[in-house]
């Protein structure tokens, strides 16, 4: 379990993650919480993230609500979420305005294409960091592969995927967990 954190620590930590979270905050927030600040171990992070991902809403926003509440109560959640969202909100509103004026300029468009491809790589790299420890448990390999195939190959919606895979996963976990 993480130590008690102050609202200031939560705000500044999540602020850093928000402002640097180009192409998705998950890679940055995983690095910040696990590698840099050591608020959570990789497996604790995986557990909290799994829970937040299986609930409705934006995964990383849910994670800041849940983590903030856990370590510092309701005001902790407020500090974490405001930290996460304030800078990106200001930036996205500014960008929308800039894009309206300069979005057609070729060099801007090319830079954005390069940025998007790199962001996809970040998502893939942090996806591997999350998935590899989970896949060390043998029963998880086939389950994860099925989820991947249903989501990426067949474009099924998440509720449908959960409906198909979760019962099997629950039965296997029920047998395996002491």
């Amino acid at each position, binding site marked *: 379990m993480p130590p008690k954190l102050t609202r200031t620590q939560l705000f500044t930590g999540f602020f850093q993650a928000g402002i640097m979270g*180009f192409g998705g905050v998950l890679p940055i927030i995983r690095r910040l919480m696990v590698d840099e600040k050591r608020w959570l171990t990789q497996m604790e992070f995986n557990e909290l993230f799994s829970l937040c991902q299986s609930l*409705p809403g934006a995964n990383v926003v849910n994670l800041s609500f849940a983590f903030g509440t*856990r370590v510092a109560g309701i005001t902790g959640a407020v500090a974490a979420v405001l930290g*996460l969202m304030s800078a990106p909100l200001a930036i996205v509103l500014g960008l929308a305005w800039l894009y309206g004026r300069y979005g057609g300029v070729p060099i801007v468009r090319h830079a954005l294409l390069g940025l998007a491809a790199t962001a996809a790589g970040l998502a893939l790299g942090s996806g591997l960091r999350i998935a590899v420890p989970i896949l060390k448990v043998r029963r998880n390999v086939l389950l994860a592969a099925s989820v991947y195939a249903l989501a990426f190959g067949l474009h099924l919606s*998440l509720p449908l995927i959960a409906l198909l895979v979760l019962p099997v996963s629950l039965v296997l976990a029920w047998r395996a967990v002491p």
Partner: protein
Amino acid sequence: MSANILGQIATLFGKLSLLAVGGANSTVPEIARVVVNQKHWLTPSQFSQFYAIANAAPGPNVMIVTVIGAHVAGVPGGLVATAAMVLPAGITAAIIALLFDKHREARWRRVAQAALLPITAGLVLAAACVLARQSDTGWLTAALTILTALFTWRTKLHPLWLLGAGALAGMLLL
């Protein structure tokens, strides 16, 4: 700008908030259906431009709704849309996470958690591949994605260096 339009924004995104299982990206088709086809707040081409803007900005990708809200009703519209999209789901997540923490040692909790892990593993990899498929239009972008993935996976290099290099490569080589 009337309170009425802010109310419409709040109701629309508040409802979507609790339907957005699997994150904001899984809700994008539904958002497009409502704001483009039903409410005619934007054209399809505006919608895809806004999607690109939300992804080019730092921060959670839920901010597609910020851009839409701001387009419809200015900065207050953007803020209302964002709050409506994140609050209901976020509060739910906080309550359920607390419940899980409270029953940390309970067997049902450990079973539920263990059952969710492989689903997460499959989903994070699938989401990354969806992003890669959308942004990799040629060998150069594909190489950028693969190199970045390797650096992110195997090193602790800060993502900002990678993103800067990616933007520069796009400017010089694409």
